[in-house]
């Protein structure tokens, strides 16, 4: 016994170390502080209370890192907000186009405008659909707002549209309200000109102009624009009617190609009658 006590006294530091290490491991293996029950709640509550008292004291290092984090978050949120706004605008446009699909009885093919060119008062747009998608020369191009133009060139995957704002534009049009017919042309301004309407015909500012059923190139009843101004010129039998296009060409992004090609039988008949009239005129 004496020897044991001497041993303990001699190695008391190592024995204490071993005991405390074992005790520490035992505490660790016992698990978390939840076993201390209410005592833990008191400690956590007290510490939390003390921390809340000094919470107003600014921590420059933490503030700096928080600032950096907030800046990054701000940038990220700005990008997301911009994307959201873009998506919202696209969503509105696409919804309108979806409605258009229901209104127009012909088959529509959606396309994105990927380029615009202007050469000597001839405005064109390039779209990302071509022959492989079923696009053909002469097809009508519209948006939910109205008539855009006509397909004038097609490759396998792309097509070129001749826009309304083109000096070659000549469209048989009519005033929706009074059914007055005329020829729509563009003379280099932001508006179109409705020609061949006599001064006695009823046309007023605000009237909607649509494609005529006389047109051999466009399907009828497609909105072209709205009358902006009506001018009666001296010494002229015709009125000068300026039409504001329904389509906003500078912001044109998505279009629909209408699966419409002129009726060949009708074209052939009209051409034959025309030829006959000319022949009669030549030989009265």
């Amino acid at each position, binding site marked *: 016994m004496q020897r044991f006590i001497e041993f303990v006294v001699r190695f*008391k*530091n190592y024995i*204490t*170390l071993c005991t*405390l*290490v074992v*005790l*520490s*491991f*035992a*505490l*660790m*293996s*016992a*698990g*978390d*502080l939840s076993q*201390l029950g209410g*005592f*833990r709640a008191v*400690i*956590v509550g007290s*510490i939390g209370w*003390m*921390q809340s008292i*000094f919470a107003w*004291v600014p*921590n420059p*290092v*933490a503030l700096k890192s928080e600032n950096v984090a907030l800046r990054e978050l701000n940038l990220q949120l700005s990008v997301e907000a911009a994307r959201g706004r873009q998506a919202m605008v696209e969503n509105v446009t696409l919804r309108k186009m979806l409605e258009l699909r229901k209104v127009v009885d012909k088959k529509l093919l959606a396309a994105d405008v990927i380029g615009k060119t202007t050469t000597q008062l001839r405005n064109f747009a390039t779209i990302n659909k071509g022959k492989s998608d079923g696009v053909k020369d002469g097809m009508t191009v519209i948006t939910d707002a109205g008539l855009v133009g006509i397909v004038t060139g097609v490759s396998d995957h792309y097509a070129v549209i001749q826009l309304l704002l083109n000096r070659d534009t000549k469209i048989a049009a009519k005033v929706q309200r009074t059914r007055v017919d005329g020829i729509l042309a563009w003379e280099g301004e932001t508006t179109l000109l409705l020609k061949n309407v006599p001064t006695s015909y009823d046309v007023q500012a605000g009237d909607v102009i649509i494609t005529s059923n006389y047109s051999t190139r466009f399907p009828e009843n497609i909105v072209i624009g709205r009358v902006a101004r009506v001018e009666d010129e001296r010494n002229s039998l015709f009125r000068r009617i300026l039409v504001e296009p329904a389509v906003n060409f500078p912001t044109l992004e998505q279009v629909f190609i209408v699966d419409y090609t002129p009726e060949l039988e009708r074209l052939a008949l009209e051409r034959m009658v025309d030829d006959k009239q000319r022949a009669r005129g030549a030989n009265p």
Partner: protein
Amino acid sequence: MSAMQFPFDRSQYMKSPPLRMIAYAVIAMLLSVVHIVFLRFISVSSVTPDLLLILTVWIAIVEGQFTGMVAGFLCGLLFDIVSAQVPGTNALVKTLAGFIAGYFYRESDAMALIGSARFLLITALAATVDSFTYNFFYVKPMQTSFWMFFVKYGIATTLYTTVAAVFPMLVVNRRKDP
């Protein structure tokens, strides 16, 4: 101000081991609260000095290896409870720190040792053992390289604790001077 005006005799208090133990306990509680509540203001990349470790080293140098280990164990356990960590983690590492620091116990010139640069070296050694052991248990359940974590946080904590140990060293050093 004369010694008679104090509520207790300071020299008597320094000579009385039970009173010293009570003082250590009160200081340990204050330091643990200071650690939790105030040290965030001087934290650098989440690294803070370990004030309870400095106290453990002090006790081990002044009172000896046995008391140092027990004090380390109790300080660690107190910190585990206050900081809501797994009980036993800090108790273990501070027991080891007390054991290491206890080797430098000199009964006659303890304050001289604390007032010198050797106190910083002892604190650095104890802090290294403390950080190494603590990070070993801390990192083990994580998918992180122990050595990377130790180099990044363990050595930083050791250095910061050693820097903080300069203050008690200077206080004792000034008292030693006539």
